[in-house]
């Protein structure tokens, strides 16, 4: 039989084992799996870089993102303007940095807040059952019957555009996912014996729910938050691109892309929209890598 590459690998492992050079590590399995996941680590690093860049925006750029400078309109990238300037002379790089603050804030903030709402409702409703559960379930079903963008657009048309409105709408449309997750966990954990034991000790619903059962559901929650962040950032970008998200006076990544609706800009001034798009893509990709890495390392059914 031919010696394949797999065979050679096996031979190596066998030699190592027989010469006892394999050490048994005591590191936490979760962390070591994460670290071994090269994509996740890469994602974490780049994510942190972009995040820090946006937070430290004022330090990194001398320009004011809002200041109009009609003398330097539509300049291509140069040493003075790393991403060039836009239609009204504003430095694109600065706008990307400051825009990042808003976009990330919206994305991460909405994800965390909607998770909070979803968890609180899910834990309580799932644990208690009865009418609370049924009502909450029906409400979340109603929200889930809409395609998300449609619902968001619908609500935007009613409430008008503003940063706050947008986040509120995101939270409103997003809590359902986390709610279902928390609820499912609660339903399965509720029947476990240690919950019965806790109840017999006389602990209140609140304590049982939040202090004891929640930690067991933590890992899928973390994964869900990262993936929600990705989704919200993309949705915000799409809405602002259409001009229907954050008002145009506040720079966000999507807003900056708004100019690309003009075909002239698309063709001739690639620096006004290209780099932003790439930054969004890279950032969301990193978030997805991290989320996937978290999921792989905390999922007990995955084999090494």
């Amino acid at each position, binding site marked *: 039989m031919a010696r394949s590459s797999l065979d050679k690998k096996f031979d190596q492992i066998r030699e190592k084992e027989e010469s006892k050079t394999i050490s048994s590590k005591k590191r936490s399995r979760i962390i070591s799996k994460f670290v071994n996941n090269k994509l996740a680590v890469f994602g974490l690093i780049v994510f942190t870089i972009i995040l820090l860049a946006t937070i430290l925006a004022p330090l990194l750029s001398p320009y004011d993102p809002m200041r109009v400078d009609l003398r330097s309109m539509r300049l291509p990238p140069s040493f003075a303007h790393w991403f060039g300037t836009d239609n009204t002379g504003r430095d694109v790089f600065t706008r990307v940095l400051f825009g990042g603050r808003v976009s990330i804030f919206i994305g991460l903030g909405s994800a965390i807040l909607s998770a909070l709402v979803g968890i609180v409702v899910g834990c309580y409703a799932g644990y208690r059952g009865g009418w609370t559960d049924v009502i909450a379930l029906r409400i979340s079903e109603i929200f889930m019957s809409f395609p998300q963008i*449609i619902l968001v*657009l*619908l609500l935007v048309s009613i409430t008008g555009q503003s940063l706050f409105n947008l986040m509120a709408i995101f939270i409103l449309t997003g809590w359902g996912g986390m709610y279902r997750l928390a609820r499912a966990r609660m339903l399965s954990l509720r029947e476990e014996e240690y919950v019965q034991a806790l109840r017999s000790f006389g602990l209140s619903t609140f304590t049982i729910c939040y202090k004891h059962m929640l930690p067991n559901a933590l890992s899928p929650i973390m994964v869900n938050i990262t993936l929600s962040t990705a989704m919200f950032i993309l949705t915000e*970008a799409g809405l602002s691109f259409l001009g229907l998200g954050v008002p145009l006076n506040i720079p966000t990544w999507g807003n900056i892309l708004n100019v690309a609706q003009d075909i002239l800009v698309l063709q001739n001034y690639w620096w006004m929209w290209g780099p932003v798009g790439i930054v969004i893509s890279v950032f969301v990709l990193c978030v997805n890598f991290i989320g996937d890495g978290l999921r792989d390392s905390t999922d007990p059914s995955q084999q090494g």
Partner: protein
Amino acid sequence: MLLIISFLVYLGLELAPGDAVSHMISPELASTITAEQLNAMREAYGLNQSFITRYWLWLTSMIQGDMGYSMAGGVAISEIMVKTIPATLELSIVALIFSTIIGCTLGIISALKRGSGTDNSLTVAGMAGVSIPEFFFGLVAILLFAIELKWLPVGGRLLPHYETVWDRIPNIVLPSLVLAIMMTAGAMRYARSSMLDVLAKEFITTARSKGMPEWRINIFHGFRVALTPVVVLIGFRLPLLIGGSTIIEQVYQWPGIGSMFIRSVRASDYPLVMTISLMYVFVVLTASLIIDVLTALIDPRVRLGKE
């Protein structure tokens, strides 16, 4: 469910500025009509009746096809629907078929070659597919294929000189492809993980112990069982497809109901906004019904109910 939502939608309509009557009459009439006539109309239409009665009237007329008028152009909403829905359907169905077939195939290949270079690159490509904003992808595609390379048209759906179906194909290529990217990535990931799950099951070993060739095991025993969760999961993503088509239609100037919706939002054209939303919900609910039926067809376990 639909009833509840239609109720909420009607509530929204009520709360929005403007009156039911002003929505029901075309603007041509509105300029000449007097206050008494308006009131008379209100009486006639029963607008002075209770909320519930009015809701009932609206609902019944909606079902019969009379959806009222759009505030912006005064065009009957039903007319708008008829004009734009086929366009969106074209786009969505093409994207759905394409993404399901390609996504599942790639997912299966990925699962069978688990851990190899092919698998890893496909997985990363898939993640890139869900990370890149679809409209950005659309813009880049326009720039590259339509403007620079001039292979495909920039947008729009029909031009006056189009005669046959074949003429229209170049127009549909870019938007449906871009729309499909996101769905393909999702389908690929689900197909892969579902296949991996199934391939680890005991009946695969049983099949192998009967001496069947690997390819047959993978497809007939592997994929056939993996199909059920994939279908369900793709069904869950259908709302995303419908939503995504909205933005893509805007980017490519595709005259579908999505771009119409955006236009109506921008113009605060509430009747149109509400009605189209209701229609979207209808589509989503119908789609999940179809998925349920499909699942029962594929998986005999589902047919007999819970076991």
